């Protein structure tokens, strides 16, 4: 054991402070992956403990080592060393919240009974003391026969002592008699241990209780829930705007500046349209992403998300899901990627899969540029009801269409493929905690970085490929055409133009022409790419900032006629297509990772494409009939 790197498994229930402890020991340098065959996240990290290299394995949070689902069986199998490709940990660190030790000891008993070297870490000992609880750690150590360390994870108190203890796993004591296996005997065992060590039970958390009297009050609680949700949308629509406009201007300025300082030609086109045009259209969303993720993290770390799930559970129960599905679907309004990752808190595998499969229907922020372009160009900015404008109402309608469809699809899936309920609903309401600024900034920075990486890789890559497809081969226009007709001719004969023409028959029933076709193909990578694609296509004939892209698509006519390309029916059909279709490589990738299969992302892509095509077709027919 001293030769090989020591592997320590962290075992504990959800909300035990296990992950905070893992982060404190490994310094947030976790390797994240999946266990084979299941949807459970695998997290490992290296720690240096008094000069010794140790691998910490953060096992999924669990209330028991007697699994009731395939996902939970991972923990049990891993601890037994039966999981192919995953070495059995050399020793275990049981993590328990000191305040709920009366429950946690039931899990600790199971961990001790495994027979591996073991120690117990009690977290949040400051809260135990604040609530008047008195627990004798030294006596507990003697009663269990294994080392016991008390820590305050988020403040780093006790971590040095813990490092010291963990680095000497070989010399840990063993329990003289392993605790009993049967559940009721285990409870009796826990009781007898506690009667020696827990001198005073912790009282209630008075702050949490006072807050909950308001937050969970039948009337006030519902109102607060509504206010929090409205604030959430206000954030999407309004508060991020100034920063977004600022970034937009900065990108526009950079493009103008490059045009000014570089000689005209392919190089400047490449930089201005290919690089800045593609990436710039996405970077603009950074402020929104940062604000949204920040709010989601704060609400979650505070403990409000669990309350929101409690308040809304009845509604979600009606369609066969549960409160935590709501929280994850709410995150999907920002982006389906964190929304899908948030489904990890849902214990039932079926509920989890259904939530994952419908999350792309929630209107994510990547659809906003598409909606903004089309609504801005074609929906008149008229006031309808007081401060409500027609444009805002159309946007709200698109959000509602997506959300209602998500609920309907979830209800259908739950009553067909995913019928039945394997697991009970249960959820802990943790005490309210003030999130530390450092942890919050780390989390927000993590998501901002992931977003920027996406902009710098997928979207940059697609933009560059697209730029090349739009510019090559350069077929010279026949003589006698005006400059804008000539540019258009060259574009139509480029590779992208040919692809667009090739798929035109398939999308013509939806009212789309080849240019929209090119945009749709490009947007398979990420929805917002259609904006930069149309930007590049129309840049051939006009100056290419958003305002003039609006002009350009408004003025575009079908060749040889005065009929506009973007008729009301086409605009409506395109908007509806974007409500449904799953054009997002990141979402597909995260579905693949979270479900650990190719089947579910393929299923989601297929059903959403069929739904999008069908709904667009119907929309096009209906609007055409109504308009004429």
């Amino acid at each position, binding site marked *: 054991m001293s030769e090989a790197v020591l592997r320590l498994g962290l075992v504990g229930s959800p909300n035990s402070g296990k992950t905070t402890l893992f982060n404190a020991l490994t310094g947030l340098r976790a390797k994240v992956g999946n266990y084979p065959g299941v949807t459970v996240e695998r997290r490992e990290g290296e720690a240096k403990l008094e000069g010794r290299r140790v691998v910490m394995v953060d096992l999924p949070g669990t209330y028991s080592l007697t699994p009731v689902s395939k996902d939970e069986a991972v923990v049990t199998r891993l601890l037994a060393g039966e999981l192919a490709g995953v070495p059995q940990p050399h020793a275990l660190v049981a993590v328990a919240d000191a305040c709920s030790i009366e429950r946690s000891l039931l899990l600790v008993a199971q961990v001790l009974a495994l027979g591996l070297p073991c120690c117990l870490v009690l977290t949040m000992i400051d809260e135990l003391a604040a609530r008047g609880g008195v627990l004798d750690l030294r006596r507990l150590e003697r009663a269990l026969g294994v080392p016991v360390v008390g820590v305050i994870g988020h403040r780093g108190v006790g971590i040095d002592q813990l490092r010291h203890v963990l680095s000497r796993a070989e010399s840990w004591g063993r329990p003289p008699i392993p605790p009993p296996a049967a559940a009721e005997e285990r409870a009796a065992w826990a009781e007898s241990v506690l009667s020696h060590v827990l001198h005073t039970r912790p009282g209630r958390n008075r702050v949490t209780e006072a807050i909950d009297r308001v937050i969970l009050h039948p009337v006030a609680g519902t109102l607060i829930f509504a206010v929090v949700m409205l604030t959430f949308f206000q954030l999407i629509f309004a508060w991020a705007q100034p920063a977004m406009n600022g970034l937009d201007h900065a990108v526009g300025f950079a493009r103008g500046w490059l045009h000014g300082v570089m000689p005209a030609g392919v190089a400047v086109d490449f930089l201005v349209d290919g690089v800045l045009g593609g990436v710039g259209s996405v970077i603009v969303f950074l402020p929104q992403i940062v604000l949204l993720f920040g709010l989601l993290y704060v609400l979650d770390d505070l403990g409000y998300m669990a309350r929101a799930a409690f308040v809304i559970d*009845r509604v979600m129960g009606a369609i066969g899901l549960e409160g935590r599905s709501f929280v994850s679907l709410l995150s999907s309004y920002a982006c389906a990627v964190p929304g899908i990752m948030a489904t990890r808190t849902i214990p039932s595998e079926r509920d989890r899969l259904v939530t994952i499969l419908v999350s792309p229907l929630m209107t994510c922020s990547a659809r906003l540029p598409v909606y903004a372009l089309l609504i801005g160009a074609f929906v008149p900015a008229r006031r309808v009801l007081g401060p409500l404008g027609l444009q805002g109402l159309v946007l709200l309608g698109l959000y509602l269409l997506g959300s209602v469809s998500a609920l309907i699809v979830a209800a259908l899936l739950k009553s067909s493929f995913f019928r039945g309920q394997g697991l009970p609903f249960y959820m802990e309401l943790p005490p309210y905690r003030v999130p530390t600024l450092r942890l919050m900034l780390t989390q927000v920075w993590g998501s901002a970085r992931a977003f920027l990486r996406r902009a710098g890789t997928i979207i940059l890559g697609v933009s560059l490929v697209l730029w090349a497809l739009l510019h090559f081969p350069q077929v010279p226009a026949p003589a006698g055409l005006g400059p804008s007709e000539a540019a258009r001719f060259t574009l139509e004969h480029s590779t992208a133009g040919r692809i667009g023409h090739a798929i035109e028959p398939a999308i013509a029933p939806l009212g789309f022409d080849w240019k929209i076709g090119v945009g749709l193909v490009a947007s398979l990578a990420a929805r917002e790419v259609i904006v930069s694609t149309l930007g590049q296509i129309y840049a051939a004939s006009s100056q290419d900032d958003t305002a003039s892209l609006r002009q350009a698509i408004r003025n575009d006519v079908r060749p040889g006629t005065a009929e506009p390309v973007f008729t009301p029916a086409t605009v409506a059909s395109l908007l509806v297509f974007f409500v449904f279709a799953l054009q997002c490589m990141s979402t597909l990738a995260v579905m693949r990772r979270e479900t650990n299969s190719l089947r579910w992302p393929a299923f989601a892509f297929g059903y959403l494409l069929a739904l999008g095509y069908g709904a667009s077709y119907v929309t096009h027919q209906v609007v055409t009939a109504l308009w004429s």
Partner: protein
Amino acid sequence: MRSPPPPPRLTLDALLPGEFGIVDALDGEGPIVQRLRDLGLVPGTPVQVLRRAPLGDPTEYELRGYRLCLRETEARRVLVRRQPVARALSTESAA
């Protein structure tokens, strides 16, 4: 002679907010009951009903130093004895 009728079955979902109960037994077997046991609902455990969600379900309970939300369907699997407040408080203090 007729045997006296069995006492009415009292389950956790029937307790009102503010009331205390002691877990007597769990109804049936299977994953749901097993998970309830894992969550600390073993015979002898005192439980207090804290509140119902605004829409009436689920309900928040306090037991073993933490707060747990259960839906009516799951709470119905937990057989309890209603406990007068004074007795419950005395079992709540130090063991």
